[in-house]
């Protein structure tokens, strides 16, 4: 009986209009987002490529007679998708010149971020746990938060020169605040009932911290870390503005001042790719930690 019903249902669902046009429309509506997005991106890239190669001026020449020549954009200004791809291929696989830059930037980035985590997490946890410490730190954190931290760059250079230390410090300054602030709010939002319970079971400060506060803080800490990753990326580029010879940011700057637009784009895309990889890593960690949080609340 049920099988019969099912069969009838199948027959019914197969009956509606089955023309090719209808199927195509169905297909389009199901994947509208992907199709529209891809088409627009391809159009954009084609327009860009054509602008650089002069396709559009060639096309418009009969209409505009001589005036079209003025509309040709010189390759040094805008580059083109194929030029960028060629430059990327050359820099990554032929000459391999980007690898030392990448290694150097990665070193600065890792050191700066590690410093930010090492300082920011204890600072934030402390400010969240000890009210008085929070009051003492508040004016400084608020001032630092309101200032665009890169404004400290010239000062940092006066102090430590233009070497690797300056980059590590600027990355630290950019990344430390999101980490500290998220750590502070993590402690503040810890379930007060759990803290009371642990206290009444005679848990020591350390035990309380390790088994109640830290586990419930981890998701917040990771959210802060994800923010910090993006901020620290800015640090690489901005930090290497001043007299750096190595690093992706320095490479972008040098290429920019020599009008090598394709190399600038390769550098920017490299940084974007690195940022995406890093935030994916954090997202993976978040997903692994997620059950931990669920079990706790």
């Amino acid at each position, binding site marked *: 009986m049920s099988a019969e019903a099912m069969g009838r249902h199948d027959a019914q669902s197969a009956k509606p209009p089955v023309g090719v046009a209808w199927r195509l429309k169905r297909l389009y509506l199901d994947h*509208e*987002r992907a199709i*529209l*997005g891809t088409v*627009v*991106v391809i159009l*954009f890239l084609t327009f860009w490529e054509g602008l650089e190669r002069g396709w559009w001026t060639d096309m418009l020449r009969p209409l505009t007679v001589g005036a079209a020549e003025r509309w040709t954009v010189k390759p*040094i*200004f805008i580059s083109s998708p194929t030029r960028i791809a060629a430059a990327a291929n050359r820099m990554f696989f032929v000459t391999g010149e980007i690898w030392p830059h990448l290694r150097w930037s990665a070193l600065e980035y890792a050191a700066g971020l590690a410093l930010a985590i090492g300082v920011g997490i204890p600072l934030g946890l402390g400010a969240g746990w000890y009210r*008085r410490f929070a*009051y*003492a*730190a*508040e*004016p*400084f954190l608020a*001032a630092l*938060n*309101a*200032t*665009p931290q*890169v*404004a*400290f*760059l*010239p*000062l940092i*250079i*006066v*102090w430590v020169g233009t070497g690797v230390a300056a980059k590590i410090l600027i990355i630290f300054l950019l990344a430390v605040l999101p980490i500290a602030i998220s750590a502070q709010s993590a402690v503040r939002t810890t379930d007060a009932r759990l803290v009371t319970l642990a206290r009444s079971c005679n848990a020591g400060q350390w035990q309380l911290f390790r088994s109640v506060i830290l586990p419930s803080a981890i998701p917040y800490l990771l959210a802060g870390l994800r923010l910090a990753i*993006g901020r620290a*990326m*800015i640090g690489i*580029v*901005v930090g290497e*503005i001043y007299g750096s010879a190595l690093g992706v*940011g320095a490479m*972008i*700057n040098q*290429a*920019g*001042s020599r*009008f090598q*637009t394709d190399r*600038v*784009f390769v*550098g*920017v895309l490299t*940084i*974007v790719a690195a*940022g*995406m990889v890093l935030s994916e890593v954090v997202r993976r960690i978040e997903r692994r930690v997620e059950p931990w949080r669920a079990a706790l609340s």
Partner: protein
Amino acid sequence: MASADALERRSRVPVWRLDVPGTYRAHERVIIGGGTLIGVLLAWELVARIGLMDPMFISAPTLIARAGYTLLAEGELWPDFQVSATEFLFGYALAAVVGIPLGLATGRYPRLSFVFGPFVDTLNAVPRLTLMPLIVIWFGIGIWSKIVVVFLGAVLPVVIAAQSGVKTNEARFIRVARSFGASELKIFSSIILPGTVPFIFTGLKYGAGRALLGVVVGELYAATAGIGHMIGMAGNTLQTDALFFGVLMFTAAGLVTVWVLNLCERRFETWRPKVGAAA
């Protein structure tokens, strides 16, 4: 009866007893915060005065105040301030004018968001400051390159916030309005816009920080005027007092911007929809 009267009278008499612990407890936050701030400033001054560290490198609060006074009194800072303020306001206003309608439109019409989505997402993944060298190639080292970088920094948070604001609108309200025959314009002005305004302010606040960052980096990178340029020059000539004063001006600018936006936000706070409260 009489005793109650007396009690009342006695409580009305001002008691000039110094309640130190009570006062402290009531204002603990201000006292500790202010105390630490003053302590740090004093220590800084002392370290510089004694010569524990060279004032040329670390400056000192009094030196910074004096440098600030001189810069302001001689009007030396005014042109730089004007340039930076123009860049910030122009770029930020442009970001709001472009970003809010774009966000509202892409939030309302899914097809538009399919078209603009790839570009918004890509641009959002790029730290826009890395585009600085390109922007300088395209727009020169004048004021326009800064306006563009401020715009690029601020526009995306605004677009994304406005878009997600529209998307979280109560579908029930829109259905109700539709069944009463409200026009698209009416739905927009009386349901979508009011519900989205709080989100837009969040985006604007986030964008303000980005915009300020753009001013600083743009002017450090390549400029002929502006507070950021002044800071860079002061660093190159080891005038740490002027440098600190410039940084402080950016701090003040950041605080003022957030304050103004908070004021505006409070003005629109009543518009925030209370989702689920009526259910």
